[in-house]
């Protein structure tokens, strides 16, 4: 009996080993993919967008997929990162790396402010409160015309070349631009991978799975929520800062709650709670948007309908479904 079951499970074990290997080195594998990605894309600018929105969705997914909190206010984190990075360059003529650092810091501070209020609420309230607070941030940035350009957006974020230890890179060249952004995305992959593999990562998932048990085990659930929200804000702030450098303008729409919805859609399309899912989701979303808008301006109809179908029939998302198949 034992022998039989052993022979039966052997091939499965080999496959699981391979799967375990891929899982252990997921950030490395994802990074390699990111490095070759622009070679298979029709436009490099689209590839840069996928990286930026993928990073944004990754930050969102840390909260939604791993902690189980559905936020509809991530546009505020993304937008704050973008605006602060842009303001640093336009109003203070700071170098690009300082602008990115300020963008990340902006995401962190905004996450601490919104998260500090929102984590007091639970479940469904959380989605509503985060959305309402981010609309508040939207109006605040909209009103501060002197700093943000109000309705016209913040213009004139021109970064021509990027200096790293005396080496000069031409930021106007699309490929260089891609690899500068990719460097930050790869960094984010490794940081996220470390967070998830750390004891704190285990606590995050424990809180998602059973909050009462996590609390009974002595973990500070509220603090875990707040810290995860702030970490999520750091990723989103970074994505926002990169978006500002890439677009050289920050439109006010970046703060609107439809941008929050984009992160939700991307995570769900790709697969929530999976490491690489947000990037797959961002790629599918932006490719769909580009393809559908070739023949109709009403691309939101198609994207919305596909999203509804996904919620109904494929809640695990594209990448999540592939992972499930591979596990079997």
């Amino acid at each position, binding site marked *: 009996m034992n022998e039989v079951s052993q022979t039966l499970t052997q091939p499965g074990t080999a496959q699981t080993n391979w799967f375990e290997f891929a899982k252990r080195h997921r950030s490395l594998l994802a990074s390699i993919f990111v490095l070759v990605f622009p070679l298979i894309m029709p436009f490099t600018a689209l590839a840069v967008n996928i990286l930026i929105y993928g990073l944004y969705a990754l930050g969102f997914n840390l909260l939604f997929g791993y902690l189980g909190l*559905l936020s509809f206010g991530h546009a505020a984190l993304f937008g704050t990162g973008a605006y602060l990075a842009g303001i640093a360059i336009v109003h203070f003529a700071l170098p690009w790396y300082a602008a990115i650092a300020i963008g990340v810091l902006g995401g962190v501070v905004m996450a601490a402010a919104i998260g500090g*209020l929102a984590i*007091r*609420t639970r*479940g*469904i*309230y959380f*989605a*509503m*409160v985060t*959305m*309402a*607070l981010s*609309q*508040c941030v939207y*109006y*605040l940035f909209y*009103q501060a015309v002197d700093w943000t350009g109000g309705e016209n957006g913040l213009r004139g974020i021109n970064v021509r070349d990027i200096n790293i230890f005396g080496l000069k890179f031409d930021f106007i060249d699309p490929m260089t631009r891609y690899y500068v952004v990719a460097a930050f995305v790869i960094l984010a992959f490794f940081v996220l991978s470390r967070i998830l593999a750390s004891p704190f990562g285990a606590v995050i998932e424990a809180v998602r799975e059973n909050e009462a048990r996590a609390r009974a085990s002595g973990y500070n659930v509220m603090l875990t929520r707040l810290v995860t929200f702030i970490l999520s804000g750091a990723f989103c702030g970074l994505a926002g800062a990169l978006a500002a450098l890439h677009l050289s303008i920050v439109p006010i729409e970046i703060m609107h*709650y*439809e941008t929050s*919805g984009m992160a*939700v*859609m991307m995570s*769900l399309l790709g697969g929530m709670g999976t490491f690489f899912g947000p990037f797959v989701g961002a790629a599918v979303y932006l490719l769909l948007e580009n393809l559908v808008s070739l023949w109709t301006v*009403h691309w*939101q*109809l198609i*994207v*919305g*309908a596909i*999203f*509804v179908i996904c*919620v*109904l029939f494929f*809640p695990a998302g594209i990448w999540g479904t592939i992972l499930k198949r591979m596990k079997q």
Partner: protein
Amino acid sequence: MAGLSFDLLALQLFTGVALGAIYVLFAIGLSLIFGMLTVVNFAHGAFFMVGAYVGLFLVSLGGNFWLCLVAVPLIVGTIGLVVERFLIRPLYGRGIDYPLLLTFGLSYVMVELVRIAFGKSGYPFDTPELLQGAVNIGIGYFPLYRLFIIGVAVAVLLGLWLFLERTSFGLIIRAGARDPQIVRVLGVNVARVWLFVFGIGTGIAALAGLLAAPLQGVIPEMGSTILAEAFVVTVVGGMGSIGGAVIAGLLVGVVVSMTSLFAPEMAKVSIFALMAIVLLIRPQGFFGRAGLMS
């Protein structure tokens, strides 16, 4: 401050109540649907917008405003029935996030369909002739149409209250909100009750959209603005509580109109500041999440 008199303040307060009446109508549907089905309807703003467009369409066909008051909730409520039956019902028992995400995607589809049918730009919506002008209400002249909105809101609330408290179907709804399991065991078709509650909620949202149309015009994005503000109303009032939605809706309306008198640029932000204060003091809102009518 010289121009500020007691009468002006009182008039502004009254304007706030009229604005609040729209919020109340919007938010009681949201609250009713949440209280019964535990579905946060992200498409509620889209139903509000569709209500205004259906009204616009009926008027362009030669229908009058008074007919719209009846026809719009019925038509949009029927759309709500279809949505509940075929899109939301399959998701029960799969957690609260899924219906929320589905209705969010649905709102994209609805807004885009309206853009295809009516175009991206907005339309003005004429105030019906009978309701134009202003009347003296003792403290000054007040637009008749705003008085009418308050009247309709009171009538709808009264009707809803009578329906829930005095009819046997209302009794089933209230019981279903407390414990759907027991109601099902007693032989009631709970699925059908939920279907009708969703239809009633979306119908009232459509009525609110129609009433708001002469005040602000009709554009495809009109639903997304009020949705964020209505979330403030439901959070302040307490999810699932109709009484909370009424009080918080009026409060939000008054706060908006008062700040637009003193600091117009802060009018939008003040709503959210109100929510932040309430959350700090009472995270569950005024009326917690107890029963339906509490």
